């Protein structure tokens, strides 16, 4: 191992510079010019010696450099550099550590630095032309607005009774901090009216590195007509949980809330297991929607997707739903089940 060999050489034998040269030349066919290079090295400063290192240690580092300097010199080039930095570097070696000890003060720029035009090129290129150019560069390098659409879940659901479907999509348009965010989800059984369908339009504002505050409106499109005001927080929680929480206040005064969390657990670079939990809560009974006060519904799902591309990943999974508390009572009154198991197949994609 070269490193070990290099370490041992100078420790073992005395004139380490000579050894260094020997070693250097031993490694390759020696060149005449190098072999006859004059030995100046003792006056050569070591590389990076400014911190006043122990010279025994530094010798190893120096060794290579000095050997190479010889190689360079050996070619007989009149080298201004070499002439200068021998002596200069040498003195630097002794003094450089001292001035560096006193800290350099931080401070504002001198008054001179504020003189003259705000933009140096304006006078030469034309202020108007530069202003337009600057505006376009500012836009370009400070983040162009981005459009994103994601279908997190778009799936076929096989279950007891009639099979069903579900969509859960979202996206945004905007810059780093402020975005227009939209969401839509809904589900139903084939051959029947959709059980639920909603769209949300939200203003989303970054309130921290990982969290957005979202405020807007939700419109239900299936079942009894409802419009809601929405306040929510969406983002990435510690341990990489994607979390989406929102409170909904309907035009009828009903207050409900929803918490969703999911986690991407990578099995391989492309095979990903995604556990998912969703809870719906209500502050009051809402008989016409079949919702009881307290915990209304809970869903727990597990989806295994394969990312053929990051943007396109089909999945298989299972999801269990429960109606709970008062909601379960409403369901039983209507002769509906209070829980369901869905075997799902779908696709997650974004663009």
């Amino acid at each position, binding site marked *: 191992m070269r490193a070990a060999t290099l370490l041992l050489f100078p420790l073992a034998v005395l004139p380490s510079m000579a050894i260094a040269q020997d070693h250097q030349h031993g490694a*390759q066919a020696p060149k005449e010019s190098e072999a006859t290079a004059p030995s100046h090295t003792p006056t050569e400063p070591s590389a990076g010696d400014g911190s006043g290192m122990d010279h025994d240690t530094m010798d190893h580092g120096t060794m290579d450099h000095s050997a190479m300097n010889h190689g360079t010199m050996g070619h007989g080039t009149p080298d201004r550099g070499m002439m200068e930095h021998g002596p200069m570097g040498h003195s630097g070696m002794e003094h450089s550590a001292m*001035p560096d000890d006193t800290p350099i003060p931080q401070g504002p720029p001198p008054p001179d630095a504020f003189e003259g035009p705000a933009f*140096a090129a304006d006078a030469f290129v034309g202020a108007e032309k530069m202003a337009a*150019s600057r505006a376009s560069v500012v836009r370009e390098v400070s983040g162009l607005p981005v459009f994103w659409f994601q279908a997190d879940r778009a799936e076929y659901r096989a279950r007891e009774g009639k099979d069903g479907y579900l969509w859960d999509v979202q996206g945004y348009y905007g810059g780093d901090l402020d975005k227009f965010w939209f969401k839509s989800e809904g589900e139903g059984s084939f051959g029947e009216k959709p059980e639920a369908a909603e769209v949300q339009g939200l203003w989303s504002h970054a309130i921290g590195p*990982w969290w957005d505050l979202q405020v807007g409106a939700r419109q239900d499109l299936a079942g009894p007509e409802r419009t809601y005001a929405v306040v929510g927080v969406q983002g990435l929680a510690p341990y990489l949980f994607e979390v989406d929480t929102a409170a909904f206040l309907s035009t009828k005064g009903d207050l409900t809330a929803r918490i969703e969390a999911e986690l991407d657990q990578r099995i391989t670079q492309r095979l990903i297991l995604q556990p998912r939990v969703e809870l719906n809560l209500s502050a009051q009974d809402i008989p016409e929607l079949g919702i009881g006060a307290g915990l209304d519904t809970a869903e727990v799902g597990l989806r295994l997707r394969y990312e053929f591309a990051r943007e396109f990943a089909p999945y298989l999974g299972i999801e269990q739903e429960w109606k709970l508390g008062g909601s379960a009572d409403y369901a039983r009154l209507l002769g509906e089940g209070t829980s369901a198991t869905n075997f799902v197949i779908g696709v997650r994609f974004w663009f």
Partner: protein
Amino acid sequence: MSTTPLSDRFAIDRRKFLTRSSLAASLLGLGHALPAWARGSHGGTMARKGSDVLSGEHLTMTVADSSFATASRHGPAVTVNGTLPGPLLRLREGQNLVVDLENNSSMGTSIHWHGLLVPFLMDGVPGVTMAAVEPGERFRYEFPIRQAGTYWWHAHTLQEPMGHYGPIIIDPANGDPHQVDRDYVVMLSDWSPMDPHVLMKKLKVGEAPFNFQKTTATDDYPLSGAERRMWARMRMMPTDISDVSAPLYSYLLNGHGPEDGLEFAFNPGERVRLRFINGAAMTFFNVRIPGLPMKVIAADGQDVRPIEVDEFQIGNAETYDVIVEPTGADAFAIVAEAMDRSGMGVGMLASRPGARADVPLLRDPPLLTMADMGMNHGSTADSMDHGGMDHGAMEGMDTGSSGAASGTMDRSMDMDSMSMRDTSLLPPSVKVGPGVDMVSMNPVDRMGDPGIGLADVGHRVLNYRQLVSANMNPDMRRPTRLKEIHLTGNMERYMWSFDGQKFSAVTDDPIRFAFNERVRVKLVNDTMMAHPIHLHGHFFELVNGAPHGHQPLKHTVIVQPGGSAQFDLTANEPGDWAFHCHLIYHMHNGMFQVVTVRPLQGGEG
């Protein structure tokens, strides 16, 4: 203008290029039978791979839409004078240069002369020093060449990642101190058929969409369950090394993918100078030539005292010149492995046409460490044995550590009790908001760090502490002022900024320096990614402990994650200068500022 034919030293290149262009022609013929979308073309012509050479005092550079193909990938590209990379400008120190830029492409364009000391109006940054050159327009650059060395040029628009870049070699006026038998440019880049705007959007809305090396339930990463939970709790990934990687990128050497079999000829025993330029949009490379030590002789175009290494990491926009003396084998592989080790660019040093050396396998992907989170408790990553006796020792000294190499144990203990975002640690100059997801707790100087993943590779790896300017620096004054700038970001939202503010927030509030002011700039990285920070129009001196007057001059400095880096700057080039992260999608998401040097009448370079 004169277009010199490829010289002897590019002979191999030329042979390749001839076969390539006939291939390109046949592809083109075939292509016409297909609709435009199927050809993946928006310009119709195929880019030729590699560079022609331009030299003289008056050059014309024509930007055009094009297509590019490598291995099975093909798609839209942008070329200058028909090639990818664009032409090599071979210039001489002391000459004057006039370049007529013609834009035949469908997008706004510009050329920035990366690392060249130019009057600010010639610097080629739309919105700062000029307006973009619109399709059909021309722009004339005119300036004297005041320096020598290896540099490059590139668009300062989103044409850059599509192929609008090329190398510059400037020969010294008074003869080169390094006598070599052959002199090659090795321009590293990354290319994707995906449109840069689309790519940027996916970074923004996806969850590290191009990383296929994430931690999973079935991976082999040496992470305990507790560590995995810790990373998840922080909402971060230990594998967040590169935002865009091999699933999307082809890694190119002089425009050639690994399968193209690019050869650099040598005769055994010759001294060969290789000028590495990282022209990639988003990729740091680890460069090795297995079996062949490399003598680093210049960094960012400026001569340094020779240092022999076996590997170096090169950040975006950096350049390193090395000398190798290949002997003892027919061929040596030049390996440019992406920092996240998802892929590599490969070329061959070949002593005869067709000679091949074994190409090493990709190494295991690296993981971020405690130090990368700004919790440097003994430089877990740094103190190990990269054959670098000096950096190990110095790093230990620097952090006052007990040299604890046992990352695993104290990593999990420490992270439990620590806040990753204690904003009280930030100075008032940093605006705290959703764009800041992390604050480095103890951002130590990481100049001695060889770069992510290279702490324990078992051979000599370059680090910034080893760079020593070969010549005496002109300005020996001690800086009178310290300016601290924080590099900030939010991985989840893909926001990037300086001091918590993206460019739009500070358009009227640039970073100000007085003409000839000597300032020490301290860059503190409050993110978990390494950022190559570039200041236009100047060289700055890395504060790396080099002997007095010999701090290395650079135009771009990598600031390691969770760490800091300092440079001394003499602000002696009046005007407005771009200052930005050279990862293009970091720059294009806000990590961009303007540095003004006033008053203007200090003389215009």
